[in-house]
């Protein structure tokens, strides 16, 4: 049996090689799924953590609990630390993630204590933070451990009187005016007695690196705490052991270890810990929740991207297997006629298919790995880069998916055997003679319901566009049919186009029936009479090209629109905001606070002009400005931009065509009226405002967000639709975790006027980089100069991040891999189909030649056949792809660009993409033609006739 199977496989080695190629591609493409999914989700997880850091400026994976310790067991710091370490061990025994830092703090409430210098009473706490000295620097004074060496006379005196040495934070120094040398007299009460303590401030401290994970709770949050050393805090604990000692334990987990494989376990362990300890909180629970929500979407999208290609591959396997069987029908019928049972025939083919399926599935695995790496390295459709893809690593699930490929290919290879194995040689002949000339889909008009269904779904989805976009923004699950609908449409429309194509060819043939020369006559009849056979190849061509065109246009539209929107939102190449210090003073608890920002030296940035910065400008940006049109009409939460018009024009950028006229005209109008403002179109429309009208705008106090600080009345000098950095629609999170769309209004005023009216407040520095300049040079400069950055937006970095974002990566990667696979399938299918067809036609060509048809006429005949079948199928594929682009890009883009934006979605179609595809398809065609040409050229007429007779 094995030898017979080996003989059968080798007998049709090229066809079986094609079959093997199909199974390899199927196994590879299926096994890409688990690897790509895991890699993408790991990347998603890391990006969510990074996003958390950017948004909150704190470490993203912290478990914190707090409580109080009472009793004799906790009479010193070490016993308390032991208790906290036990807690940590319990957590990490379940959550197996390395701990990179921990902040363990203890506090004793000292209550109101009298201060010696002013005699005022202040509420203070005694605190101990383990390893504080390693993470904080002294601004002035000495650490409690070194208090004896203090040269401050007041400190010396207090220490001599037995005071406990303490340090305080910069915040306590700034706001509570606690300073070195101050002594506090506190009375600590426990249930038994009352003890008196003296403490003295020996130093002021600040974080040595406030971005370090250790500072999950920053020093400014300990504004009333006086930190002492272990020895003194133990003394306090000993005296106070019967009372409550507050502890707080924060464990910083290495979030790079939280991944696709352990995320769910970690979530459930945390959930269970929280059920036991209600004070346990984590900073990563919400990150995990949003990861789980996106995970569902990612899985669905990835799967829906796989379906059309898998369908194409299964069709390919079915076609090749059918072709092999077609050539072996005589053999099978002979076996049947000789009494071999149907079961034995099926078993024989099952074994043969099993061998090919197994080999293909195994070989497919390393190809799956390669495809995944290739897809993960894409930057756009068919743009492969050498970027780091180590996050994508092979996993065991790939074997399971290769197993699925094995079963599917086995099934699709064996299905065609079942009907064929039914007939004896006589039945086969009569069956052959009654053969239908049209394919099943053409006979039963399957293209029409497919088209109608996809059209209906498209209409419905477009009607629900608003709600779908809000679902996407809220991180809700996406209906996978949105993606599948386009594939359904391509299939329906592709088949319909082929039906029309057949009708056109029939019409052309009939019109010139009596006039066609022999070559044309035969060619037309050949196309018309073998549509069923050629149908498969035509469907492959239409589907591959249509999907390629659509995917490339969709990917390009999504990529470019996203990049345009990022560029618009940032407004220039680099925006940064420095951290400013503010001094707040209050005369009394009820009096109004006086505040003053200290502006860092802007001249430091001048040096950046030597680091690739072409121009820069200060921009005041406030998203909480209020606008009043009259006493009754007030809008809050508007965006105010304070700009120097000339510098701003030189630095910022705006896509052309978004306003009625070039935006420089608006800047000129504003520049000419120091107290004028530009406003957004939506504000003008809402209140029927026009140029020359006046409106009032006000800003709130930085220390009291409910208190209006100042306001001014200005004349409107221009109305803009779009402006660098301004989005006219914003989405706000609602209490039920959904998002609501809101109009955002803009006022652009002159920088000097804004400063004059609203005082100097933190501004953004907008920069334009010179051509070929690298933003990393700016980053390095900021780091070198130790400039403390509150926030920054770098256009190029954001675009790169976007390209690497999970959804875009999946789209670019899967579309590119899918296209390559469908092209290979199409090329191999096309080549095999034509080689076999030419071989089959050897007798007929021999007859033509014997009848006097010249070689030139035979090639002309083939050329016409190719033009009307293959070339027209390619054209139909292109047409279907373009039609799908125009109908579906807006729908599918909702998933990628759900937010309404000043830059409307633009469907981008680049001729270079079509050229690229045409070159690839053309290359496959040329190879096919060379092979066909060689076969025909080497054909010997008499031999061909003889062959035919055999």
């Amino acid at each position, binding site marked *: 049996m094995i030898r017979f199977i080996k003989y059968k496989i080798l007998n049709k080695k090229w066809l079986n090689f094609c079959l093997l190629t199909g199974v390899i591609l199927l196994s590879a493409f299926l096994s890409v799924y688990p690897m790509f999914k895991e890699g993408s989700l790991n990347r998603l997880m890391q990006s969510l953590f990074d996003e958390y850091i950017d948004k909150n400026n704190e470490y993203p994976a912290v478990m914190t609990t707090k409580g109080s310790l009472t009793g004799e067991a906790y009479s010193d710091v070490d016993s308390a630390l032991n208790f906290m370490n036990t807690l940590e061990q319990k957590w990490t025994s379940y959550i197996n993630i390395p701990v990179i830092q921990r902040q363990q703090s203890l506090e004793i409430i000292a209550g109101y204590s009298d201060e010696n210098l002013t005699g005022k009473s202040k509420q203070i706490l005694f605190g101990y933070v383990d390893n504080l000295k390693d993470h904080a620097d002294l601004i002035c004074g000495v650490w409690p451990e070194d208090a004896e060496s203090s040269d401050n006379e007041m400190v010396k005196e207090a220490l001599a009187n037995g005071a406990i040495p303490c340090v305080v934070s910069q915040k306590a120094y700034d706001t509570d005016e606690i300073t070195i040398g101050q002594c506090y007299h506190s009375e600590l009460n426990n249930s038994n007695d009352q003890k008196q303590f003296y403490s003295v401030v020996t130093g002021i401290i600040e974080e040595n690196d406030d971005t370090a994970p250790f500072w999950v709770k920053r020093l400014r949050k300990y504004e009333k705490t006086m930190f002492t050393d272990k020895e003194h805090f133990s003394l306090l604990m000993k005296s106070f052991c019967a009372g409550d000692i507050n502890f707080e334990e924060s464990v910083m987990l290495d979030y790079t270890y939280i991944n696709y494989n352990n995320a769910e376990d970690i979530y459930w362990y945390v959930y269970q810990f929280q059920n036991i300890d209600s004070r346990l909180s984590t900073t990563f629970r919400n990150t995990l929740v949003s990861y789980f929500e996106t995970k569902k979407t990612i899985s669905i999208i990835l799967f829906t991207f796989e379906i059309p290609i898998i369908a194409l591959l299964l069709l390919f396997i079915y076609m090749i297997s059918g072709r092999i069987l077609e050539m072996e029908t005589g053999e099978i019928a002979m076996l049947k006629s000789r009494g071999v049972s149907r079961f034995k025939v099926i078993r024989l083919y099952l074994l043969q298919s099993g061998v090919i399926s197994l080999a293909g599935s195994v070989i497919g695995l390393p190809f799956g790995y390669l495809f995944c790496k290739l897809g993960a390295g894409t930057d756009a459709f068919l743009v492969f880069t050498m970027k780091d893809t180590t996050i994508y690593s092979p996993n065991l699930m790939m074997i399971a998916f290769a197993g699925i490929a094995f079963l599917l290919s086995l099934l699709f290879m064996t299905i065609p055997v079942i009907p064929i194995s039914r007939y004896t040689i006589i039945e086969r002949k009569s069956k052959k003679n009654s053969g239908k000339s049209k394919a099943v889909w053409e006979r039963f008009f399957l293209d029409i319901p497919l088209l109608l269904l996809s059209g209906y779904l498209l209409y419905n989805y477009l009607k629900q566009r608003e709600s779908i976009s809000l679902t996407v923004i809220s991180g809700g699950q996406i209906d996978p049919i949105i993606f599948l609908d386009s594939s359904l449409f391509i299939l329906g429309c592709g088949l319909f186009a082929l039906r029309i194509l057949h009708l056109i060819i029939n019409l052309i043939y009939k019109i010139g029936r009596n006039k066609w020369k022999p070559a044309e006559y035969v060619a037309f009849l050949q196309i018309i009479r073998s549509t069923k056979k050629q149908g498969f190849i035509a469907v492959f061509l239409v589907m591959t090209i249509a999907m390629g065109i659509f995917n490339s246009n969709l990917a390009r539209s999504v990529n470019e629109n996203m990049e345009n929107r990022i560029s618009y939102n940032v407004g220039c190449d680099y925006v940064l905001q420095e951290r400013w210090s503010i001094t707040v003073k209050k005369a009394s608890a009820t009096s109004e606070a006086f505040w003053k920002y200290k502006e860092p030296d802007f001249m430091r940035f001048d040096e950046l002009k030597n680091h690739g910065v072409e121009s820069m400008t200060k921009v005041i940006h406030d998203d909480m400005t209020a606008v009043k049109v009259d006493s009754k009409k007030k809008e809050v939460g508007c965006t105010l931009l304070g700009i120097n018009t000339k510098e701003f024009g030189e630095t910022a950028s705006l896509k052309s065509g978004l306003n009625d006229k070039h935006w420089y005209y608006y800047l000129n109008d504003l520049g000419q009226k120091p107290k004028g403002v530009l406003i957004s179109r939506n504000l003008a429309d809402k209140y029927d405002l026009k140029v020359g009208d006046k409106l009032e705008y006000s800003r709130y106090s930085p220390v009291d967000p409910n208190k209006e600080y100042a306001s001014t009345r200005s004349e409107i000098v221009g109305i803009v639709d779009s402006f660098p950095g301004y989005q006219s629609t914003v989405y706000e999170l609602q209490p039920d975790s959904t998002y609501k769309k809101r109009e955002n209004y803009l006022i652009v005023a002159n920088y000097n006027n804004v400063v004059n009216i609203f005082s100097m407040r933190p501004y953004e520095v907008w920069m334009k980089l010179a051509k070929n300049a690298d933003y990393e040079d700016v980053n390095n400069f900021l780091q070198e100069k130790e400039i403390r950055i509150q926030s920054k937006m770098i256009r190029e970095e954001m675009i790169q991040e976007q390209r690497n974002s999970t959804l875009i990566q999946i789209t670019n990667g899967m579309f590119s891999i899918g296209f390559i696979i469908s092209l290979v399938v199409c090329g191999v299918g096309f080549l095999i189909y034509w080689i076999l067809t030419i071989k089959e036609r050897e*007798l007929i060509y021999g007859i033509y030649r014997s*009848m006097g*048809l010249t070689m030139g006429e035979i090639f002309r005949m083939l050329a016409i056949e190719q033009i009307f079948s293959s070339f027209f199928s390619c054209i139909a594929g292109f047409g279907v792809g373009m039609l799908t682009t125009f109908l579906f890009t807006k729908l599918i883009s909702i998933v990628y660009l759900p937010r309404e934006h000043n830059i409307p979605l633009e469907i981008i179609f680049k001729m270079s993409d079509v050229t690229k595809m045409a070159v690839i398809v053309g290359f496959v065609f040329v190879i096919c033609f060379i092979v066909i040409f060689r076969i025909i050229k080497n054909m010997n007429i008499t031999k061909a006739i003889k062959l035919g007779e055999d």
Partner: protein
Amino acid sequence: MDYIIKTEDIHKSFPLGNHEMLEVLKGVNIEVPKASLTILKGRSGSGKTTLLNILSMLDDPTSGKVFLDDRDVGGMNTRQREAMRRYNVGFVFQSVALVPIMSAYENVDFALKLADYKGDRDARIKEVLSVVGLEKRMTHMPSQMSGGEQQRVAIARAVSHKPKIIFADEPTGALDTATGLGIIKLFKELIEKEGITIVMTTHDPNLMVFGDAVYEMEDGELRYVPAEQ
């Protein structure tokens, strides 16, 4: 007497693969008169199909000359040979060589188109198909016809453009005796009505009586067989 074909000492050898040659035709000389039925008989492998291929310009002799309608075939280029086959020659093969994607009507029409037939093609197609008795099956595809019917379509196609000569390689080989006889009678009618010359090979002894001239191939040599034999 007018001869349409004359040969001079035709030899044909095929390489055997081990640097040896197999001589299939060993100096064949034949003269085929116009408007006659010439039969080549012989056992399988005797070289009759090879001779037919050479006479019909489908193959070249290793040496010797073939004159077709007084023209030396060896002196013709490919284009001239193709034109000669296209306009002046018709073929009927042993296995019915109809174009499977064409109906009976279209198969004949194709031959007429090839020969650039100047008359009323439709009328001619119907005429030749009615001569072979298939006027009612014109729209049928080859797969819908029996072997004999297909062979008759092949004959109709071969004669449709009024060639000077028809080469038929075992035209009755795949047919039963009665159908075979019918085909030969049809040939005789065509010779009479259209003045066509037919050269055919066969090994069926029953058909010899119909030949105007009968030749026998034996070991690569051709021998004229007188009528009384």
